[in-house]
């Protein structure tokens, strides 16, 4: 049994369409799983559902999410919140908006340790210094006293990574953590996340639309289309021979994996039609 188990999770917009269709996936300790799909495929919603930050307009129709064998739904709200806070952490997409502009960086790293886990302040600060060192930030004391606007985007993402690992979480959810960054910084950040994950041996769910990134750091991946799992496999066999026609087309639409002689091919219409038909069949099967 994996640390994170998502089983048959179905979400819908209140009085609207489904956005996830019976999604199941698991991430084990030390495993890096890519969650791949086009924008709008619902991949970020899975992260939000795990973290308990779904927008109010979205309803959970069915399914369960468990951490370390405990079904989160069975816990009282306060206990659930604290359990998630202690065991799961998020590396957000946009480092420019994910730090509170009116608070210094230091407390934003230590607040989970002090307020939720009850550490004393000096211990939490020592831990933050250690983490900033781990993410290769020189002069941690100065950085902890800074305000976010005084730091660069890459620097802020390093801080958010340090903050995510602060409480030694069992699971990290990285929601497209490099999309908002410069290409040159992207690589460093990606390497850093992988390095931190190795060192702390955490489970990592890496949400991305970029198969190139998946090939570099993930051992396994889940491909999502219109909220439905299209393929769930390990990275090696996926890149050797993707099982689903949509996956094949997706792979061909990714620059790195296409022969440079070949022009990039968008996902062909007949593949899209076929996968749309699968989704429709699924909905019919539920009688919607």
């Amino acid at each position: 049994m994996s640390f994170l188990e998502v089983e048959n999770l179905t979400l819908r917009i209140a009085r609207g369409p489904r956005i996830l269709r019976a999604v199941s996936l698991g991430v084990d300790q030390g495993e890096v799983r890519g969650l791949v799909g086009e924008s709008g495929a619902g991949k970020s919603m899975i992260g939000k559902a795990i973290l308990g930050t779904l927008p109010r307009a979205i309803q959970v129709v069915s399914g369960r999410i468990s951490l370390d064998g405990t079904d989160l739904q069975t816990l009282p709200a306060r206990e659930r919140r604290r359990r998630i806070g202690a065991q799961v952490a998020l590396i957000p997409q946009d480092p420019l908006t994910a730090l509170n502009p009116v608070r210094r960086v230091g407390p934003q790293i230590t607040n989970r340790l002090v307020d939720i886990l009850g550490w004393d302040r000096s211990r939490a600060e020592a831990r933050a210094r250690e983490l900033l060192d781990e993410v290769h930030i020189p002069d941690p004391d100065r950085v902890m006293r800074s305000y976010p606007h005084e730091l660069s985007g890459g620097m802020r993402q390093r801080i958010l990574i340090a903050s995510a690992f602060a409480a030694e979480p069992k699971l990290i959810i990285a929601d497209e953590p490099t999309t908002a960054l410069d290409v040159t910084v992207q690589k460093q950040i990606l390497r850093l996340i992988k390095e931190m994950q190795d060192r702390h041996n955490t489970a990592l769910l890496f949400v991305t639309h970029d198969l190139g990134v998946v090939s570099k750091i993930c051992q396994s991946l889940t491909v999502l289309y219109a909220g439905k799992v299209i393929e769930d496999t390990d990275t090696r066999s996926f890149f050797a021979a993707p099982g689903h026609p949509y996956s094949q087309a997706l792979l061909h639409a990714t620059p790195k994996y296409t022969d440079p002689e070949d022009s990039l091919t968008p996902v062909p219409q007949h593949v899209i039609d076929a996968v749309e038909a699968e989704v429709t069949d699924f909905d019919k099967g539920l009688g919607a």
Partner: protein
Amino acid sequence: MPFLRTILARLAATLVTLFGAAVIVFVVIRVVPGNPIAMMLPPGATEDDIARLQALYGLDKSIFEQFVIWLGGVVRGDFGTSISLRQPVLNLVLGRLPATLELSIMALVIAVFIGGAMALTGTLRRDTRTEAAIDVTSGMALSVPDFLWGLILILLFGVLWPVFHISGRVSPSLDFDFQTQFYLFESVLRLRFDVWADLVSHMFMPSLALAIPLAAIISQLLKQSLKETMHLDYVTLARTKGYSEASVITREALPNAVLPTLTLIGVQFTFLIGGTVIIERLFSYEGLGNMAIDAVINRDLPLIQGIVILFALLFTVVNLVVDMTYAALNPRLRHA
């Protein structure tokens, strides 16, 4: 140092505004048709008596000359002598200022508490009936001015359920001898809690009347600002850390949402101070506003001038303080 330059520019603009206000008041009150001097003298005074008294108050010179003389006096801290009360204007005005300041600040504190509580509750219970009820309440509170709230409060707490004093600042029967006119403040320092309680009982209704519209504005602006902030990434990130919705609002959203609200509250607070004029009259509270209305009715030119300039000064100082607080609270400006 752009921060310092901004402050200096604001100070310069403030001086221009004050000068303009002085000119306008000076001209307006000298068009007054009634002769204030004639009203001071007993019937049967001769033309000669009137002329002598006019010369004494400098009212025989041209408006321009009078203004230059008055301005010269102001620079030396001399605002002239009240015609009806025959005392230096500065002493009279400074004697009443503490009463008005205490009333305004008490109203501000009440407004911040009520308005803040409404905004926080509305954000916590957003998109529910509670929020709708808060919206309707603040809409009503805002539509009706302080004067009417004062009258309604008199009916409620002065007549139907008479628990508070409806007129005056302090009960005359109380025996106390304070150094300053800041009674509320000094009563605490001297541990005279009987005096303090009596003052609060007198101030409760007028300050609440002044506070109601401001509380409504704070509730509306702060709630809107909070709700916008609640969608931002750093708020979501705080939620994932295990904070409850209430602490997410107070710890992460509030410090940011307060900033845009603050500048608007500054202007609204000057409106509140302006409102003390009629509210003090309504509750016979011995402050500047009440004195101002008497001064107008008695055509006491030097006193009117002094009071209006003091109000203008108060307004501009409030705006200046708000601007500086904003800059001090906003780390982006502080380090710019």
